[in-house]
């Protein structure tokens, strides 16, 4: 069951990256949906859980595949962002409106 959930998440992120580079690109490059997903996920997830970091790694990988730079740049960038959110934001800033998943 857990593996199906992981597979679905990977597929979702993949389609998000494909949509970003084919469909949404016609409306401007203002939004990076994978970055938004990573930020939201890490904000609402418990600081001890690591799925937010995994999602950042997978999202970064697909962003790297569909961009022109070295593979790894977006992976490391998104992982760093999610660790930063977990360590600083979630640990020291309490947002009562955000629940736990």
């Amino acid at each position, binding site marked *: 069951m857990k593996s199906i959930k992981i597979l679905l998440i990977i597929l979702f992120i993949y389609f998000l990256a494909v949509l970003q580079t*084919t469909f949404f690109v*016609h*409306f401007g*490059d203002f939004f990076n949906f994978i970055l938004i997903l990573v930020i939201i996920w890490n904000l609402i997830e418990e600081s001890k859980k690591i799925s937010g970091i995994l999602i950042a790694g997978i999202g970064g990988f697909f*962003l790297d*595949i*569909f961009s022109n730079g070295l593979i790894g740049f977006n992976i490391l960038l998104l992982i760093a962002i999610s660790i930063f959110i977990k360590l600083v934001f979630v640990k020291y800033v309490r947002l009562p409106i955000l629940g736990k998943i």
Partner: protein
Amino acid sequence: MKFSQKTFKTLIVILVIVVVIFILNIFSKNVRNFFYSVSAPIQKPLWKIGNSVSDFLGVIPWIKNSKQEFEELKNENQELLVKIAELEGFKDDIESLKNALQIGLEKDFKLVMAEIISKDISDDYILIDKGSNSGVLENMPVITEQKVILGKISKVFKNYSKVMLISNKESSFDVNLFNINDEKKDISGIVKGRENFNIFLDLVPRDKDIKQGDVIFTSKLGGIFPENLLVGEITEIKKNDIESLQEAEIKPAIDIKEVNNLFIITQY
């Protein structure tokens, strides 16, 4: 120095990530080609749907301004009719010259047709569906069927290639200016990319008389592109008293979002 089990695990994970990234970069061409092959059947229709939807949404603000635009177009139409009448006189000459020189896209260049699959999210690069299997090499120019320059091949995979658009920040090439009312001007400059499909003309001496509406073509100087490919039209000139060079904003001759098919010049 003793490591706790948690620190040891973290170090192992970091090491694994670094090794995986390193391996992925060694085989990046194969990895990318695999993902592009898997994604292409989804990407092609999505690109076309995005194109249609953005065209449709673009019509809404246009309807609001349509009355004013209609008047402007009416005036422009009358001016063009006068121009056509003038040009009609040159038609026969041009036809005979064309036959003599055998001008035509296929006759000028050896071409490979390609379709756009996707656009890079951060830079002005596009992915097209032709690669080394079709004889595509790096630095080959990419144009539309109207002989408008789009960019050059920057990376080649087996079945796909990345095209660096002329609007990419790293793109710069030599151009010549032409005015429809004057004879060919002896003015050249450099067109540089400004991202998001924007380009500008740079390094034109201040004393050179450039005007709004001047048409820009590629020059063979620099050897990046063949000459006389259409680039765009000057919309705004920027010069000041201090600088010895002037700049100008350019409206590209074609919007990449409207392009589906393009041509790679394999030989010129």
